[in-house]
């Protein structure tokens, strides 16, 4: 099976603190891959390095797009990443509160828009047409996530669970081949988490894409992920299936054991 993302020897330090230390892993096409680790293990930092929000000190991050072309992500400006088909969500949800829900989702298709400033200013018919088409597509994405009823309400007024879903719907607009989810179930209740698990599984299946996720909810991770990588202090502890990870002594020490106490 071909890979969609490969991370090799990734390291980054902040003022002497090694947040990620020589980490390597790779994700296959259509795979749901989990990244777990105790708080402060550097999971979100890994995401930020992959999407070039942080520039890693060492290591190579390679991404293979839908057409099979390989791209070296290192040094790319962050706004170019989504164009390759690699899209992310944020730990604390980054939603545009001033915009209606559907416009938030449309933002996910930003790179698709052909119209420039002048075409938009003079509302050229072709630009309006493209806007209408993408709006339809955004509506479908919202429907997929069960938000189509409130598509025109302002995002700022929505509860946390809905914000998480808007972010998810937003990732579906760019024909992704890899979606990175940063704690998709953070702050959700059990029923919501269960629905979300099904939704993520459905997205991987229906959109033929791989998913890389960080999550603290072990039930979700173990039930959903094909493979899991456990890290601690930026270092890889173990990699394998849910069962393998659960049995790994190192992981139990660093993570699962402590989780039980809490």
């Amino acid at each position, binding site marked *: 099976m071909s890979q969609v993302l490969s991370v090799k020897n990734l390291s980054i330090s902040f003022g002497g603190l090694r947040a990620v230390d020589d980490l390597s892993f790779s994700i296959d096409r259509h795979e749901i891959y989990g990244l777990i680790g105790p708080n402060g293990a550097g999971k979100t930092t890994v995401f930020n390095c992959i999407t070039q929000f942080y520039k890693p000190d060492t290591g190579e991050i390679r991404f293979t797009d839908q057409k099979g072309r390989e791209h070296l992500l290192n040094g790319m400006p962050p706004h170019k990443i989504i164009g390759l088909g690699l899209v992310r969500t*944020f730990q604390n949800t980054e939603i*545009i509160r001033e915009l209606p829900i559907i416009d938030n989702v449309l933002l996910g298709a930003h790179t698709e828009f052909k119209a420039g400033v002048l075409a938009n*200013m003079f*509302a050229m018919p072709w630009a309006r047409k493209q806007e209408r088409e993408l709006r339809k597509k955004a509506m479908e994405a919202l429907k997929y996530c069960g938000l189509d009823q409130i598509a025109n309400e302002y995002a700022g007024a929505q509860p946390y669970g809905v914000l998480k879903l808007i972010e998810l719907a937003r990732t579906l607009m760019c024909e992704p081949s890899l979606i990175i989810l940063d704690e998709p179930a953070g702050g959700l209740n059990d029923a919501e988490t269960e629905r979300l698990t099904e939704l993520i599984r459905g997205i991987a299946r229906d959109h033929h894409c791989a998913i890389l996720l960080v999550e603290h909810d072990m039930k979700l991770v173990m039930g959903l992920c094909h493979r899991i990588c456990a890290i601690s202090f930026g270092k890889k502890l173990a990699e394998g299936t849910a069962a393998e990870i659960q049995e790994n002594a190192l992981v139990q020490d660093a993570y699962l054991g402590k989780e039980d106490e809490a």
Partner: protein
Amino acid sequence: MRLIRNKYLQYLLVGVAFLLPVLLRGVPTATVTLAASMVYTAIAGLGINVLLGYSGQISLGHAAFMGLSAYLSAYLTKQLELPFILSVLIAVAAPLLIGLILGAIAVRLEGFYLAIATLGFGEILRQLFIEMDWFTGGFSGASATYPTIFGQTLTKNGMYTFMVCLLVVLMMLVHNLVHSSTGRAMIAMKSSRSAAMAMGVNVFQYKLISFAISSVFAGLAGVCYVHFFRHVDPTVWTAGLSLNLIALVVIGGAATVGGAVVGAVVMHGLPELMKEMPIIGEIPGLPLLIVGILMIIILIFYPRGLIFVPRGIIDSIKKRFGNAKKGEV
């Protein structure tokens, strides 16, 4: 009801309302002059709203851009006798070009660098206005004429009508812009830079675009000013005017198309009203103080701006009315 909701129609109605002083008989010319002040500030304010309201950047140098265009247009039409349209194009291209260069330096950095760079640059420009007297007439200023468009030399009322038409067209263009992918990207980068970047918005590019648009609008406002008042001197284009532009956008309603117009009306109307009043009219600095206080009240308690006051009142009446109805049932 649906017709009134049509935004283009609303903007046309705003235009008609502004034209009342020239349409009605017996309106003193001072009223037209006051209204013209509102219109040219509204045009500059529209641009500032794209910059500040939609993309969240502060500029303290747009008054200088207005001045630059005003001087240029006066010089080109009077000294070089270029046709009005051509001189407008050149006069507006100048702040656009400078804006792009200045923006390219400052916009890459943290947000506040733009405010400081424009403040400094505005001061340099103002110094130029004073020193380069072969071009600007120094302290005494330069004069200009009513423009000639397509062989027709405009009168005072004609120039005013031209300005109102320009305002209406610009409102429509801004409306189109902010309701498109460009406007969405601007609002996104103001609200969450991270989300905007992750979704493919080139933040640098969009900041620069909004700065360029606002520079062009400031240029157009300057051109309107010089050909309506037919005189331009360096005392007008201070950082204080740039500050006023920001204040009127905030007071009228940031990130709304009509906000700049409402703000401009308040900004120029308020001091005029107060002049009429006994005692209060005598106090120096009072209008400035009131505008400042109004701005803070709006920023803290009513960030949507004055433009939402009527709608807010209607909504609260509706709510009461609706509740009463429910109560009856």
